């Protein structure tokens, strides 16, 4: 997209000033039915965080499938178990990403503190265990 001088740029559609009541009919109502429209830049940052979580989930899913497809010298049962854990982690991550996007959006609308990152800690913990099991499998 071509750049333009600030004074000649049109404001993009999503960044136009919005009527606080304009969001009332949007789905889901438990997100958009309360509070007022936050700064669009914050909403877009929230969107990008959600999308980064989805890509992480896809990477975990692909890693699980790839692990199941290769032949390693370790026990086959352990390999299948790790592959399953990775795929299930991908499933949970994608679901948690959407829920987190919605709760964060709602928190921004009602001017409350953003939700905690407990899911991130659990993710890291499970991934550490998976990494350790992979070391056992490969060595």
């Amino acid at each position: 997209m071509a750049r333009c001088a600030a004074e000649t740029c049109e404001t993009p559609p999503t960044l136009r000033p919005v009527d606080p009541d304009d969001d009332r009919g949007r789905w889901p109502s438990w997100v958009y039915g309360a509070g007022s429209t936050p700064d669009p830049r914050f909403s877009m940052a929230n969107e990008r965080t959600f999308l980064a979580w989805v890509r992480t989930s896809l990477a975990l899913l692909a890693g699980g499938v790839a692990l199941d497809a290769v032949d390693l010298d370790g026990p086959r049962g352990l390999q299948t178990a790790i592959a399953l854990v990775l795929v299930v982690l991908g499933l949970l991550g994608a679901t948690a990403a959407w829920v987190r996007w919605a709760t964060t959006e709602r928190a921004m609308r009602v001017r409350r503190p953003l939700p905690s990152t407990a899911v991130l800690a659990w993710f890291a913990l499970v991934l550490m265990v998976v990494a350790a099991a992979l070391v056992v499998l490969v060595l």
Partner: protein
Amino acid sequence: MSTAPDSHDQLERTLLSWRRTALSLVAAGLLVAHVAGRGLGPVGLAVTLMGTAGSVAFVWLGHERRIAATGLALVLGVLLLGVVAVVGVTTG
């Protein structure tokens, strides 16, 4: 720093992020479809490819004000791939 170029940048980054994620779903879908084709037969392959295509099309063409629905379509695409992958891993 002026506000308008920054706002354009934010919007472009977000749109690119949606498309990058949709392309990631295509890549993962092809990988899972490969597994599904081997382990689950042509029905599994067809379900995986059609589900992925539907999800990606919805995301690619999604209206920017329906973020929740578009995001949910993306998540449903990932869930479909995950279910197929679980079945493929356990049966393969």
